[in-house]
Structures are given as structure tokens and as C-alpha cells.
């Protein structure tokens, strides 16, 4: 007990200015932040909406507040296992049931900036990850795997969703890569800067939408629309990601932060 | 077609009262009515208890009517009437009061018209004037009566070849008559050139074709000759009267008034001819209506008024002294009181107690009223012939 208490006190003082820096990995939640666009035969994701109830006016002279509405998967958001059909029977698969322990986990950052810049449909494959481990060291277990693509730098431009006549174009993993991360590296989940954990064209893969399918079918999580990954070390960041406790929810907008050595 | 009119036996008209007009007044109609009664008292000695009949006319006394006025002015009449017919209200009050006195329903009826004219009250009274006006007249340029009478004038000039100069002659004569009336609001001589050069208001109506709205009150009494004698008042008798509303509704434009329906019986009952009339007091909101009355009352044939105007003089010393106080065109139009001043002025001339110059040897006055533009024309017309009693 004493050790843990010391640990927490040390952590607090480190956060307060003694060696740990907090990096905000969250995009601003605003009405114009893009949401994923599905083919028109499917229901669509509602963007963030905000209407003022009062602002120090007749409707509330001393207070300011808004009604807000959005999809669970709007803005920087968390995907719970129940989001996907493969995860529908996973125990504690909805956001309200996710163990709070999982809100805190270390991260490993896989940099695919150069590859994504060269090919906006860049696919992260198992060989790519194995080569990455060769160069950087193994991906430790129970880590968030964060794909740093610099896609967040496109926010506010057409090239973020990057919609064209044949659909969206953005990087993401294939099925083998996902199986590797889940089964052989026991990742907590996959975090990306793009609007979905899957690549823009992933619905056309032989195994469509493998990130969603494999992550959630195995009780793992997704984090999307992250930003600030360029500020994280490859190893050694601690992620705090706490979705709203929505009853039976499939996901949730949230604030994601990382603790890194100052 | 209609039954012969019974003569107005045992009826005397007397005590014409005019409260000096003001262009604008902050006082309400009630104040003006009170001033008229006070002047009546000063001229005749009458007190509230002496008055057993009251006939009232006003546009601006709201929310009161004649009912409210009795309490306001301390009257306890056994006969009461409220007349909403504006320019025809003087003659209508006269004939109603006359029958009340003749039949014994009342012995002394005060007929009174009072209206105020506050800044902007003209616009307000216009806005709520009549349903047809709000629905189908004002939305077309909101020219008020000027526009309505411009249309009548346009059609009348076109139909009968009457010219602006003809109308001008009438207006110039009336202004000349106003010259001797100290109470007239406009007494500065008007030349025909100035009339012709005036700015247009609603073509072909120009500035001097229009009356000046003002505040004022007019009154007279109708009683028995015996009572008038007791009071020491000069008096006149009623030779004949007529009244008509919504005449000739099938006429597309009002080129004739209701007088034309009843004019024959009018002169027959009076047993005189137009030539015997010493002074003509007609409603003169616009000169076209003056011209129309000259025709429809039988002073000339229909369509010949242009020639008639050119051949006659209408000043106090002329062949047909017309609106000898200056009429509303020069004396001012005090709302409903404007429909009374033809009675009071006619009465004064034949009683030889004029405000200004006297029509020489006047004993018979023809008085004509015209009122209430409900939609596209004046709806109410009335006329009376008064003769001084010795």
C-alpha cells in the first residue's frame, strides 16, 4: 500500500511539473468536424451539433449551456467491441461495461508517415510490422498500437476524408497485420489519426474491414481521429482514454491524453 | 312615387353658433362641444335644464357617443340622437330635430357637431374609417379622400367638359367670401393664377381644391316659434328637406348624388324655384362636389355646370352667393362640424347676423350636405330650404 501511495504521489508531482508531460491527442469536437461517410444505402453517422440553450440571456440570465447531439462515433472517439458484429457477444463489450482498467494503457507508436505520404492507400501488412520490429524492437503486450500517419494534419481540408468517386482513400491495416497485433502481440487496441481504424478502401479487401472485425471480435478497442501522435515517443507513452458511460453504447466521443517523459 | 312630405309646421330654427376654428387643437371633441354650449348660453341664456332634445355629431369623440356626451355636458334630454353622417349631418340633424319638435317629442333640441384635430389625428381617423375603405381604397396609394375625389373629378371633367378653371372660379369666389369672415382660417385672397399654379395632390386635384382639416364646433337649436319668441331669438322656418343614402349604386362613377333622386318633390314641397334662393350653402369638400350639387339641386341642367359657372358670380355680392363664410375650402373643415356650417351660415345670412358680409336682402337659403365616403363615393346626401320668419 505504501508503495502504491508513493507511486501515486510521485505520479501527481511528475504530472504537476516534475517530469511527465501530458499530450492532448484529441481533435476539437465541432459541427464541421467530418464524420465517416458510408455508401448511401446505409444509415449515416450524425455529425456533432450544438444549440445554445442560454447564454446569460433571457433563457438563462446567469448561465451558459448548450444542447449537443452526435453519433457515438463522431470526432475523436472510442470503439467498443460491441461496435462490430464480430464483437456482439464479447463480455463487457459495450462502453458502459468496459473495465476501467483498460482506460489506462501504454502505447507504442508505429510511424507510417512516409509511406502514407507516398501512398494514401498505404496498407500496413504483417511483413511491414515485422520489419518495423526489426528496426525498433518488439511491440510489447497489452499496449495500444498507434499508427502515426500525420493524417491529422489534413483536418480542415478535403483530403482528410479524401472522398473521391470511388470512395475514401486513407491508410490502414490488412487482416494479417491485425491478426498479428491481436493474437501475437496482444494489443489493447488500435489507434489511428484517420476517421476509421480501417483503411479508406478496406471494404473492398478480401477480408473487408479487418481492423474492426478482428479487433472487436477479440474484445479489443479502437481509437479514431487522434491527433498529436507526432509528439509521442515510439515507446514509453501512457494513454488515458475514458469513453462516456453510455448504457449499451457501441462507442463514445472522448478526450484522449498521453503521459510522456518531459 | 313617394308620399308628399308634411310641412314643418310649428318649427323654428335659430341661434347659429360657431366656436372659432383652430388648425390643430390638443383639446378633445368634448371640450369643443362644451365651448359650443357655453357660447349658446351666452347668446341665449339657455341652461342645461332648458334643453330637452340633443342631437350630436362627431368623428373624434370616441369612445363616447351622444350618450356619453349627455352625462359629460350635464344634459337630461327626453330625445337623443347621434348622427354619423359627417358632411350630411347638419341637414339630417335639422330634419330629425324638426320632426321631434313638431310632434312634441321635444320642445327645444340642440343640434351640435364638434371635432378636434390633433396632430396626426387625420391619419388615425382615416385608418379606421370604413370597412370598404380599409379593404379596397387605402391599399391603393393611401391618398385618402383626395384620391377618391380625384377619380370622381377626373371622370366628371371628362364627362361634362368642366375645366380646372371652372373649379378655380368657385374656389376663388369662396376665398373672396372668406375675406370678410374673421373666423375663416384662410382669408388671404386667392387668384385664379395661384389656383392654377398650385401643386398637384392627386391629379387633377390640386392644393386649393382641398380643405384644411381643423378643430371646431357648430350648433343651432330647433324649437317652437313660441319658445324662440320667449327667448327673444330670430328664427327661420323649414320649407322642405330631402335625404338619401347610397343613391344610384349602379353608376360606375359618382357623377350625380342622391339629391337627383328627390329633387322634384323638394322644390314642389317648398313651393319655390331655385331662382328664388338668395344664398346657397353647399358641402364643399372638393369643388367637383359643389358643381355636382349646383346641378343636382336644380340650379342648372345636368352636364351644364361649366357654362353655369362661367355665366354666374358666386361672391357675396354675386348672382348666387355661395358658401358665404368661405366654405370649408377657406374657413376650414372641422370634421362633422364641417357638415353643420352650411346650416349655421345659411341661417345667419337669412337671420341677418352673418360672421362676415351680409348677402343683401337674403331671406331664403338653400343648404346641402354630402357625407361619408364609404368606398368610392359619398354615400349620404341631404338638402334643406330655410326661410326667415318675420
Amino acid at each position: 500500500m505504501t508503495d502504491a501511495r508513493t507511486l501515486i504521489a510521485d505520479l501527481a508531482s511528475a504530472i504537476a511539473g516534475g517530469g511527465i508531460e501530458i499530450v492532448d491527442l484529441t481533435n476539437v469536437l465541432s459541427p464541421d468536424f467530418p464524420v465517416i461517410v458510408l455508401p448511401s444505402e446505409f444509415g449515416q453517422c450524425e455529425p456533432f451539433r450544438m444549440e445554445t440553450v442560454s447564454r446569460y440571456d433571457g433563457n438563462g440570465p446567469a448561465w451558459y449551456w448548450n444542447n449537443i447531439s452526435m453519433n457515438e462515433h463522431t470526432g475523436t472517439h472510442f470503439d467498443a467491441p460491441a461496435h462490430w458484429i464480430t464483437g456482439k457477444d464479447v463480455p463487457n463489450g459495450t462502453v458502459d461495461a468496459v473495465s476501467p482498467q483498460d482506460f489506462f494503457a501504454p502505447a507504442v507508436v508505429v510511424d507510417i508517415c512516409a509511406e502514407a505520404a507516398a501512398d494514401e492507400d498505404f496498407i500496413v501488412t504483417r511483413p511491414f510490422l515485422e520489419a518495423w520490429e526489426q528496426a525498433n524492437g518488439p511491440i510489447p503486450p497489452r499496449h495500444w498500437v498507434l499508427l502515426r500517419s500525420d493524417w491529422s494534419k489534413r483536418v480542415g481540408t478535403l483530403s482528410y476524408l479524401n472522398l473521391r468517386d470511388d470512395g475514401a482513400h486513407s491508410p490502414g491495416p490488412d487482416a494479417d497485420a491485425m491478426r498479428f497485433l491481436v493474437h501475437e502481440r496482444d494489443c489493447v487496441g488500435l489507434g489511428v489519426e484517420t476517421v476509421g481504424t480501417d483503411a479508406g478502401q478496406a471494404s473492398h479487401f478480401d477480408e473487408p474491414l479487418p481492423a474492426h472485425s478482428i479487433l472487436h471480435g477479440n474484445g479489443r478497442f479502437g481509437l479514431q481521429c487522434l491527433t498529436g501522435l507526432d509528439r509521442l515517443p515510439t515507446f514509453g507513452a501512457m494513454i488515458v482514454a475514458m469513453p462516456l458511460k453510455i448504457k449499451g453504447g457501441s462507442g463514445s466521443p472522448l478526450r484522449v491524453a498521453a503521459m510522456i517523459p518531459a | 312615387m313617394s308620399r308628399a312630405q308634411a310641412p314643418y309646421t310649428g318649427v323654428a330654427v335659430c341661434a347659429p353658433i360657431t366656436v372659432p376654428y383652430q388648425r390643430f387643437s390638443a383639446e378633445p371633441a368634448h371640450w369643443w362641444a362644451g365651448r359650443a354650449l357655453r357660447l349658446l348660453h351666452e347668446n341665449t341664456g339657455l341652461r342645461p335644464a332648458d334643453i330637452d332634445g340633443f342631437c350630436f355629431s362627431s368623428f373624434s369623440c370616441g369612445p363616447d357617443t351622444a350618450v356619453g356626451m349627455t352625462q359629460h355636458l350635464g344634459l337630461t334630454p327626453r330625445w337623443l340622437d347621434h348622427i354619423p353622417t359627417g358632411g350630411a349631418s347638419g341637414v339630417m340633424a335639422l330634419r330629425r330635430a324638426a320632426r321631434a319638435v313638431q310632434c312634441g317629442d321635444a320642445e327645444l333640441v340642440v343640434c351640435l357637431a364638434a371635432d378636434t384635430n390633433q396632430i396626426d389625428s387625420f391619419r388615425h381617423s382615416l385608418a379606421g374609417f370604413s370597412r370598404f375603405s380599409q379593404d379596397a381604397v387605402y391599399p391603393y396609394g393611401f391618398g385618402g379622400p383626395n384620391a377618391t375625389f380625384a377619380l370622381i373629378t377626373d371622370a366628371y371633367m371628362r364627362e361634362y367638359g368642366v375645366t380646372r378653371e371652372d373649379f378655380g372660379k368657385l374656389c376663388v369666389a369662396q376665398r373672396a367670401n372668406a375675406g370678410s369672415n374673421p373666423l375663416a382660417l384662410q382669408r388671404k385672397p386667392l387668384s385664379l393664377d395661384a389656383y392654377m399654379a398650385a401643386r398637384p395632390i392627386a391629379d387633377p386635384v390640386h392644393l386649393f381644391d382641398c380643405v384644411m382639416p381643423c378643430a371646431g364646433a357648430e350648433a343651432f337649436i330647433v324649437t317652437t316659434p313660441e319658445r324662440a319668441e320667449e327667448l327673444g331669438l330670430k328664427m327661420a322656418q323649414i320649407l322642405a328637406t330631402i335625404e338619401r343614402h347610397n343613391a344610384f349604386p349602379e353608376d360606375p362613377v359618382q357623377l350625380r348624388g342622391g339629391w337627383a333622386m328627390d329633387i322634384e318633390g323638394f322644390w314642389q314641397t317648398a313651393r319655390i324655384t331655385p331662382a328664388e334662393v338668395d344664398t346657397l350653402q353647399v358641402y364643399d369638400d372638393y369643388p367637383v362636389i359643389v358643381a355636382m350639387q349646383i346641378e343636382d339641386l336644380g340650379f342648372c341642367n345636368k352636364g351644364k355646370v361649366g357654362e353655369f359657372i362661367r355665366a354666374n358670380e358666386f361672391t357675396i355680392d354675386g348672382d348666387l352667393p355661395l358658401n358665404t363664410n368661405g366654405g370649408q375650402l377657406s374657413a376650414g373643415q372641422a370634421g362633422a362640424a364641417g357638415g353643420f356650417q352650411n346650416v349655421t351660415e345659411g341661417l345667419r345670412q337669412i337671420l341677418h347676423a352673418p360672421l362676415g358680409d351680409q348677402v343683401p336682402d337674403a331671406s331664403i337659403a338653400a343648404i346641402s350636405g354630402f357625407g361619408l365616403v364609404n368606398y368610392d363615393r359619398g354615400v349620404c346626401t341631404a338638402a334643406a330650404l330655410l326661410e326667415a320668419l318675420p
Partner: protein
Amino acid sequence: MTAARERRDPLARKKLRHVPSGLRSRAMHALSARAAQGLFALQACTECGTATYPPRDACPLCWGELAWTEQPSGAKVLCETTIRVSTDLYFREHMPWRMGKVLLDAGPVALVHLHAALHPDDRADVRMMIDRGGNAALFAVPAGDTDLMSDPQWREFIVPIEGRIVLVSDARNAIGRAMVKELQARGAELIVAGLPGPALASDATDAVLTLDRVQAIALDVTDATSVAEAASRIGGPLDIVVNTARHVRAGGVSANPGFVEQRRAFEVSAMGLSRLASTFAPMLAGRPNGAFVDVLSSAALVGDAAQAGFAAAEAARHSLLQSLRHEMRGAGVRVMSVFTGPVDDADHQALPPPKVAPARIAASVAEALLNGREQTCVGDVAQDAMERWLADPALLAREKNL
């Protein structure tokens, strides 16, 4: 974009807009309701058949009941005047004003606004217009084809397009695209084409959006912030808003309700209209001929079980339009409804003809503006629905939902 805009003295006091007095009798309002539909109707006696005007509550010839009937609109001019003095604030701004009296072929006489080219004894065609205050007004124009637009009085009763700045709320859908083209062809000075998200790379090269005098801006009527930002980007004067936004989806009430789509339909059709109106109404109110035109479905009149949410949202829109019309009356901004049946577009692929071509809807909007028509029905389906609704709304509701 700003170069062509009208220049104004920045220090001049804001010009207040006035409208003609609005006080009318109930019978006159009944006439206005018919004028709004473009009908030339007068009351005629059910006993003696005589037509009457101004509107009354009894036949002046036989005291019979009166019924509204369409009447011939020909007339002869009887007399004229040019009003140069008025106490009314609206007309004072528009002096001199020509009016006159006509003898209608239908029988009665009427005071009318008189076209500059008309004089006594001329034959005239009398148009039943809606004035700036929202009430019926008779306007006599020369019989036959005449250039009415050259008469400044006539322009008070209509909404010119040429030289005006117009916002099309959704220029991404077929109706909106057609609308942009139509307004461009009719000489609007600037057409602001609202584009709901997501923005597409192809927008930059789109044939309609890149037309001369067309400016595309992001505009999502479901987002108050987006609407406000669009307004800030328009900045300068705005004369006309054409609301083409809609969300057409199938779905019932108890069966397959599709709550997400239903809610979205309300967000677009109903709430979207409110967002547009609240943001743009003040801009329109500052303009001499402001107008808000709404393109809505005739399903608004009675509901449609196959598209229950859409129809309900359109009904809500229809209702909001009535209230907006009331609100805008004081500012003289015309609120126009253009009803259409199924449109020949991607939303109605499953439906057999008759369907209305988007270009025809756009042309009808332009005609509505140029004729000052408060209510228009485009195409047979909307026309039929409106006629049946006017005749027997309960029967139509039953027939449409059998």
C-alpha cells in the same frame, strides 16, 4: 465577388422598410387567400349570380349568400389619378402612385393600382396580386403582352431576379443544381450555392458550381453554426433565399420507421427552415424586394404512408412557413411556397412517372418570384393534391392513405 455588388454609404442611417396598412375584413382575407393561389376570384351571389366587390357578407341585390368564384379578369379603365401626397409611410416612399377605377367585365367597379401605360377608356387585364403587406390587391395592366417590369409600381408586387443576390440553400441536390442554373440564366447578380458536407474535391470543377456569378459555400441547414458561418461569408446584401434542402427517405410510422432518417428529415425540412429563416430573415428584411422561397413537397398537405417521416417533416415545414409569412409581413419580405410532387431525381428512382423535372421546379420558382405568386404547384401531382386538398382535405387524407 464583391466588385459587382451595390455600393452603399456606410454612414447612411439604415433604411427602414414599410409596408401598406394590413387591416382587412375577414371577407377580404378570404380574397387574399385566393389571390395567393393565383386565382382571380370574386364573390358571386348563390341566388342571383351577381358578382360583387369589395368583399361583402351578403348580396347587395337580393341578400343571398355569397360564394367565391373565378371571374373574368378583363376590365375597362374608367378614371385615373396620380397620388402625390399620402400620410402612409409605405406609399410616401413610392410617390407618385398611379391608381384608377375600372369596370370589371365581371360586373363590379374596383379601385386598382394602375399600370403606367393605362388611361381612361383603355381595355385592361386586372391581376389579383399580393401587396407588400401580404394582402390581395388588384393591379390593372394593359391587355396583351406588355413589358410590365418597366413599371416601378409593378415591381413592388413582384420579386425581380435580375441583378439580385440569391442564396440556394442546398445546391448539391438536383433541385438546387437546377435552381442555380435557372437563376444564373435569369441574370441574378450573384448566386450563393450552399453545399452541405462532406465537401468533395470535385466541387471545385463542378460545371454548375463554377458558372459565372456562382459562389459555392459550405452550408448545412442542420447545423446552426454552419448557417451562421454561411451568413457571415455572404456578408453583404442578400435579396432572396431559395430553400431547396430536403431529405427524402422511405419509411413508415409503426412499420420500418427509420428513426434516424425520420429525425434527419425533420432536421432538414423543419428545423432547417427555422435555422435559415432566423439567420437570413434580418438580411432579407433590409432589402426592398426581399423574398424567401421554399420548395416543399405536396405530401406536406396530407401525409404519405410510404414516406411517413418525410411527409411529416414537410408538413412541419409547411406549418413553419405560415408562421414565417406572418413574421415577415411587417418587413415586406415575401414568403413563397412552391409545392412539388415526386421529383425526377435520385431520391425517387423507385417511383414511376409522373415526376417533375428539377429544371421545371427551378423555372416555377423563378416564375413565382417574377409574378409575386405566394403559392405555386409544380406538376400534375402537386396540382392535383392541392385542388383536392382545397376541395375536401379530409377526403384527400383518406384517399392518399388508404
